[in-house]
């Protein structure tokens, strides 16, 4: 099993915001970390925002998804305060517009009303753990499933000026997600400088022209070796799959 991200980081403490949720999400348990969706029956999509502002930091959290995994869309990700948390329709709510970035249990990434394939659909009715790694300096969101890294899902998040929060949502009755682990890490100055430099320098050739020691050039070129495919939207304005 792969090691957890941010293993040198420290514990973080936040929870679901009871004042920033759909009425169809009930919060339970110590610290209100259990989000229970549509307690009776479902007639739409319901979500809840976390209390942690993510910008400019590096955060990792894990969601224990209970065995009830089914329906149109159970989603995990981030969004601004403007992301809707309730709609009376079964939809991929997180990522329906530019205010959210989400992964659904069908293995699809959503943002700006567009989706793309990212990972295999989750097996229905099989409990799982979803990890989310947000890096506010490099501007990336990466997902993990049962300890396995699925790759960078979204980029460019460091350009978002509005506060970003963790969000989960679900269309399915009596489904449950529990915040089980939270970590954070302080991004060092070197990594911050690298993020600024890589905005101006996009090729190895340009990097080689800089007057810097070889050791530092090597460090700067590490992210360039990233072979994860950039996010390619497949279908425009498709709102449900």
């Amino acid at each position, binding site marked *: 099993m792969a090691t957890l991200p941010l293993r040198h980081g420290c514990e973080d403490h936040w929870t679901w915001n009871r004042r920033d949720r759909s009425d169809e999400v009930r919060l339970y348990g110590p610290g209100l970390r259990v989000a229970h969706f549509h307690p009776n029956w479902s007639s739409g999509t319901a979500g809840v925002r976390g209390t942690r502002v993510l910008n400019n930091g590096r955060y990792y959290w894990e969601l224990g998804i209970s065995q009830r995994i089914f329906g149109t869309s159970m989603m995990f990700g981030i969004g601004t305060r403007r992301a809707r948390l309730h709609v009376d329709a079964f939809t991929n709510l997180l990522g329906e517009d530019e205010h959210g970035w989400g992964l659904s249990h069908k293995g699809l990434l959503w943002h700006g009303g567009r989706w793309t394939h990212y990972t295999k659909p989750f097996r229905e009715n099989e409990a799982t753990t979803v990890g989310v790694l947000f890096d506010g300096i490099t501007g990336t969101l990466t997902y993990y499933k049962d300890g396995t890294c699925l790759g960078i899902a979204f980029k460019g998040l460091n350009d978002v000026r509005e506060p970003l929060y963790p969000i989960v949502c679900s269309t399915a009755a009596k489904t449950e997600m529990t915040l089980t682990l939270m970590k954070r890490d*302080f991004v060092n100055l070197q990594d911050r400088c690298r993020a600024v*430099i890589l905005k101006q320098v996009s090729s190895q050739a340009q990097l080689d022209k800089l007057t*810097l020691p070889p050791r530092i050039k090597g460090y700067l070129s590490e992210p360039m070796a990233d072979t994860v495919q950039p996010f390619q939207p497949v279908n425009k304005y498709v709102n449900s799959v």
Partner: protein
Amino acid sequence: MGPGAMYVTITSADGHEFIIKRKYAEASETFEAMIGGPSETPENEPLRVDMKRYQSHVLQTVCTYLIYKVYYTNSTTEIPLFPIASEMSLELVDVANYLNC
């Protein structure tokens, strides 16, 4: 004064001196090693760190960053952006690598 001093003086290539609290300087592992090691400074002299390889405009940003780091590492409040001018980023990555902070 001396090894138990609360402040550290950092000298730059162009003759500037930056005086910051020891606890902020120690946010850099390299500074911590330089300060904490066997001190050759006499008892009644302030702690000094020689950074004469680097220009003052870069060291000024480093000092600001060290305070930012100490303040926000143990805080769970919202973290503001630490702005880094792209014109300074090349010199700053070199210092940051050296200082490990």
